[in-house]
């Protein structure tokens, strides 16, 4: 029993955070928004970091890492509001293909030459797929209508939900950071507004919620890595809790920004809209709630403290 993130996984995630922080700031989001939405140079940078091959076995030219590592990276993608379809291809499609024994495209995926956009019955759209275009509230999200008869594979759903939850955590963390940064410099009544308790307590509430979402996310990722029968419950818990955290962070951040927060000029809206989009993706709040209720209240999952890690 050792509930610590592996130091080497944390180091990799920090390196990715640093890289995206330096190369993928709000100015990049604005350039993408002004035209194109995708940029091959950004994608190439991710490939060079090895991220497209993160979960691809070493024999296929990847890094062969775990879903927990994947969740740590997906969180960084959320934090940077990354628009490129790295998570769907490298962190959702790859482990699903591996589980199915479909390894033919893994080397090409690792090399960044192939994108995979998988439809699922739970999603009425496919992100970065091909077909009739749908408009998302997120200006950097490319959606098309889902094809007829998409499958409802449970593993694919759990992978998509886990990695969405991880991105939501990163998005929420970034929105809290933006609100804190703004509260330190915006002055009213002769003081930075972050000195006022009404602002402090609002942002402290977000910090509390995030502190207790992160371990749920890690626990869900580890449950999937361990192949626990209870993994779907833990994934649903993570998605549900991350959704609430992201909405709370978004609403708190816009409130702290005041009228500035209600503009397109302030960066916050990119993160907020991604959070709204991912909250409904790969099983919305209702879907995951019902899975949790069925397992926990329905009796399939044993209750009581001795079953915490069941």
């Amino acid at each position, binding site marked *: 029993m050792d509930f610590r993130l592996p130091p080497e996984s944390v180091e990799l995630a920090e390196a990715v955070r640093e890289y995206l922080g330096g190369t993928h700031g709000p100015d990049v989001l604005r350039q993408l928004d002004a035209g194109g939405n995708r940029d091959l140079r950004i994608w190439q940078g991710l490939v060079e970091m090895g991220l497209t091959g993160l979960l691809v076995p070493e024999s296929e030219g990847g890094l062969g890492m775990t879903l927990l590592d994947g969740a740590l990276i997906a969180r960084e993608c959320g934090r940077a509001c990354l628009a490129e379809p790295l998570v769907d291809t490298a962190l959702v499609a790859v482990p699903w293909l591996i589980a199915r024994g479909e390894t033919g495209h893994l080397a090409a995926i690792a090399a960044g030459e192939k994108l995979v956009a998988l439809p699922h019955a739970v999603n009425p759209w496919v992100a970065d797929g091909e077909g009739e275009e749908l408009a998302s509230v997120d200006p950097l999200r490319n959606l098309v209508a889902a094809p007829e008869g998409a499958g409802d594979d449970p593993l694919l759903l759990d992978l998509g939900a886990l990695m969405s939850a991880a991105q939501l955590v990163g998005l929420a963390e970034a929105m809290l950071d933006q609100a804190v940064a703004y509260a330190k410099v915006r002055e009213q009544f002769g003081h930075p507004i972050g000195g006022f308790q009404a602002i402090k307590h609002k942002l402290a509430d977000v910090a509390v919620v995030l*502190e207790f979402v992160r371990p749920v996310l890690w626990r869900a990722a580890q449950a999937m890595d361990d192949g626990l029968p209870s993994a779907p419950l833990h994934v649903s818990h993570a998605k549900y809790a991350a959704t609430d955290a992201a909405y709370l962070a978004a609403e708190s951040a816009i409130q702290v920004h005041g009228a500035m927060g209600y503009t397109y000029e302030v960066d916050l809206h990119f993160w907020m809209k991604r959070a709204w989009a991912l909250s409904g993706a790969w099983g919305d709040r209702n879907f995951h709630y019902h899975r949790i209720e069925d397992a926990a209240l329905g009796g399939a999952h044993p209750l009581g403290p001795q079953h915490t890690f069941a």
Partner: protein
Amino acid sequence: MDLAYTTRQQAFRQEVREWLAAHVPAERLVTLERQDGFDQHVAWERELASGNWGMVTWPSEYGGRGLDLIEWLIFEEEYWAAGAPLRANQNGIFLLGPTIMEFGSDEQKARFLPPMAKGEVIWAQAWSEPGAGSDMAAIKATARREGDHYVINGQKTWSSRASFADWGFGLFRTEEGSQRHKGLSFLLFDLNAPGITRRPIRQLHGDPGFAELFFDEVRVPVENRIAGEGEGWKVAMATAGFERGLMLRSPGRFQATAARLMALLRETADRASPGLREEVVRLWMGAQAYAYNTYQVAARIMAGGSIGAEASLNKIFWSELDRAMHRAAMHLLGPAAELQTLPDGRANEWLEGYIFSLSGPIYAGSNEIQRNITAERLLGLPRVGAG
């Protein structure tokens, strides 16, 4: 990351479970906020000690088992799942004990820790004063040095367990004219010492759980001071860290409450609104999240890390979770919520628990203060004015 218990940990859980099954009183004890109930709880402390379960993480020479934090968490999980009584010596074993372990001399450890683990000496805390609540640095009670004694004068209040306990600990101003955090010392005193008057205060439920303490020329030997003269604030902050951090509220307690709440929801399913139903499931999720977080913190501490201002996040989370769980139970019980004894003859533990849960966001540093600490020390927001 490894989220499986070792064989040894599983065997330990089994050992704890079997001992508790054989020893936990079948009859629920009277509340420890009354003298008769307090005596019952002290007897239970001694029963625990007879099985060497007083404080499992302490070294054996101090009455413990030398176990690690994971084993402590397992012990606590089994303890609360078994419906075992509240710990009368909580202030001792969870707050003062770790403080003495960190700051006390070898003589102090040998003198105070074993009787604490054995339940022979029950401890009360004495932090607050009428003018020093959330602003604890406003403490006025003085301890004047006279040779090898301090002479204490002043008043403490909201002193948990002090109506019935044996000894107390708190901060006193040992430097005349000192201000705020400076000039304070951490002293231990015999509650039966001449010059101490205890005035029990009736709590919300009507029983005298805490007390006011009046000190009139109370003589305390210098060897009862923990750490150096004037270092009291530093020591007290460490104690407060234990209190808000890992030890005061182990997750097993809230998970046991969450499991009972889920059972109550099943019993009252025909009455529960969909919103209340979802609220209960959310609260169960909250208790799980609290457990994961605690295991994460425990692993970090075992690897040489520490818990700092994150303790404030913890305290906000568990105290509000506990209140919300009991509130949900009150709503599920509906018209029976007000009854001291439920129609089926059981004591209304939810009512008692709800009343107690209202104190959680207030004691150990109010949650408003914890939110200030979170904002200032974790988020780096500026301090404006008092705080």
